[in-house]
């Protein structure tokens, strides 16, 4: 236990801070969930890549900086502290990237990771189906081997970024008649492949942040299979672990929200009941607790450990904390809470953030599923009546 940064870590922090100060857009970008906003965020991804900040923990061979997890946390703290934009390529760099590093061939690593870090290819996830949400093993979409291709048929839904992104990844049933977790394979596909129809779905805020994907005899080269045929579930569980675990939601983002909430409270302090202070103080406490825990998990991984079902605790905590902070802000704003833009023209980012926060307890495995995992795998409570 040593809670002081080394001089090298402090110097790195200053390097990040300087680059961000010179490059973060002065005005917040239009929302990532609409087409124009998406393209602005992609441009920002490329700007990050120019500075070699695309994915700092990746090996240098794939366009990263080969940094350790403490340096990654420092980067993230500065990133969110500077008010930098959301990451358009989040699905790629935090989910698929680590999965390819673990399961991909050298050829796949070279083909997919470098353009991902460079912001040249933006990735969408394609997990859920109409009949396979929390119960992901109920997947029906098929991929049938035909020579050196797989032929995909079926439907995916709630595909984040799929309205505008370049490539997608997901799980398909490659073994005819297979059930549940067996016979599934993990495939990567160009979203412009003939036979794929994208139907953007308007999200709660009105913009098409995700899409339905229809596959009609879509031919995907067999070299886009990640790991072996039939090993999809194993790969997907690793990906879901990354999603719930360390990297997807770095503490810096929440700490920045807590700081903004403190500022908002100070503006509303004259009319606010003293009891409102507690929710604001709790925002600081919870975001700090989340940060300490992330540093603890990072230290554990750096010492050779790994995270398993603890990732579920993490996901429950950050998603409900984020919702609570935005709820507090909405309640402080009062009549202004409903405005998409304030009278002075600024976007009401508390409203946008609150809407987004409502997705946290649902996606990446609903919090009900996470609580089941916690109870069964961490606490050892009995599995009864579950499939």
């Amino acid at each position: 236990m040593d809670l002081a940064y080394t001089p090298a870590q402090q110097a790195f922090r200053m390097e990040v801070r300087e680059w961000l100060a010179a490059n973060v857009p002065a005005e917040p970008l239009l929302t990532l969930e609409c087409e124009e906003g998406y393209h602005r965020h992609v441009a920002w991804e490329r700007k990050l890549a120019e500075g070699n900040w695309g994915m700092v923990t990746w090996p240098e061979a794939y366009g990263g900086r080969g940094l350790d997890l403490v340096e990654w946390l420092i980067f993230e703290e500065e990133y969110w502290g500077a008010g930098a934009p959301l990451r358009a390529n989040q699905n790629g760099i935090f989910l698929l990237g680590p999965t390819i590093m673990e399961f991909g061939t050298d050829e796949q690593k070279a083909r997919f990771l470098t353009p991902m870090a460079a912001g040249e290819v933006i990735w969408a996830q394609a997990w859920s189906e109409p009949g396979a949400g929390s119960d992901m093993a109920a997947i029906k979409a098929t991929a049938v081997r035909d020579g050196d291709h797989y032929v995909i048929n079926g439907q995916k839904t709630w595909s984040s970024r799929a309205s505008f992104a370049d490539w997608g990844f997901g799980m398909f049933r490659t073994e005819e008649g297979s059930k549940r977790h067996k016979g599934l394979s993990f495939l990567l596909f160009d979203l412009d492949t003939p036979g794929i129809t994208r139907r953007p779905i308007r999200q709660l805020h009105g913009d098409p942040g995700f899409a339905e994907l229809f596959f009609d005899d879509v031919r995907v080269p067999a070299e886009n299979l990640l790991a072996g045929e039939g090993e999809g579930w194993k790969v997907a569980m690793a990906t879901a672990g990354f999603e719930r675990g360390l990297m997807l939601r770095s503490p810096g983002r929440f700490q920045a929200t807590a700081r903004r909430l403190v500022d908002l409270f100070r503006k509303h302090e004259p009319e606010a009941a003293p009891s409102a202070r507690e929710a604001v103080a709790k925002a600081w406490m919870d975001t700090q607790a989340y940060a300490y825990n992330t540093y603890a998990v990072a230290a554990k991984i750096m010492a050779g450990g790994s995270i398993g079902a603890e990732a579920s605790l993490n996901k429950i905590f950050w998603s409900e904390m984020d919702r609570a902070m935005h709820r507090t802000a909405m309640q402080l704003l009062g009549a202004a809470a409903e405005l998409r833009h304030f009278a002075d023209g600024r976007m009401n980012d508390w409203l946008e953030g609150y809407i987004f926060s409502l997705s946290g307890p649902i996606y990446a495995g609903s919090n009900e599923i996470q609580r089941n995992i916690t109870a069964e795998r961490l606490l050892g409570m009995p599995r009864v009546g579950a499939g």
Partner: protein
Amino acid sequence: MDFLIDPERLELAEAVRDYLAGTHGPEVLRRLDAGPNRDAVIWQGLVEMGLTGLLVPEEHGGLGMALLDAALIARECGRACLAEPLVESAFVMLPWLIAQGRTDDLVAISEGSLRPVPAHRINGSMADGDGALLESVDPLRNLSALPDDASDDPHLLDLGALMASAQLVGLAEAMLDQAVEYSKVREQFGQPIGGFQAIKHKLADVAVALEFARSVVWRAAQALDDGIDSAALHVSHAKIAATDTAWLAAESAIQVHGAMGYTYEVDLHFWMKRAWALGGAWGSRAFHLRRVDEAVIGGSHVIGPENTFA
């Protein structure tokens, strides 16, 4: 920067855990409750493990360890619902005496022959003191009236609050374990009640709270060890997180136990009552929340992602 607690530091705490699990089980709590609730043999066992000298500098014959090490052991004392005043004496009073330069009695304290206990105005009473007895809901806590010369030193308060927090973590862990075990054996509707999601989710919430309280407590211990300016804020954060977690664990555990949990016959009540006691001792939740509020909203502490360890 390394938030990992060294495995060697955890080894001693694990040894204490094993020792208390073997010598200080629920049957001991029941025995102490039925008779005199302090036991010289138990105390001597703790002395022989070196725990009374844990924080005594090596030049005074102790182990010279840090508050973080003591906090890790205080957690084990909470887990065992230890009745002896080890934490208040050796982990709160003793480091305060050392901080004040009062080192005359360190050898006697190490050897276990002297066990001074802290008296602080924040508490209104004291544990294991000499004054007129007060009755606590916790049958294993010996409370007495506060002497006139009780301290109001903020450092003593921080030490007491930190060690109460660490004990509350251990208490919560023990109550969660008891509830989980009960849920596996108690059957209704033809199955263990732990198979019902209503029970699973209740206890999963306790696991979440614990996961995020532990790091806060260790951070506060390290902040006091490092003597950073903001240490009091981190202690208050720890006390709130640990208190909330322990009370959540207590209320969840009694609910899972059903009517059995409402009896004096199920041992859960010992841990629950200690959680009530320590949740209020060394500064109420409201007191500590005020300190956090003044620092964070009042603006005396710099916040935001760049200042995680400020």
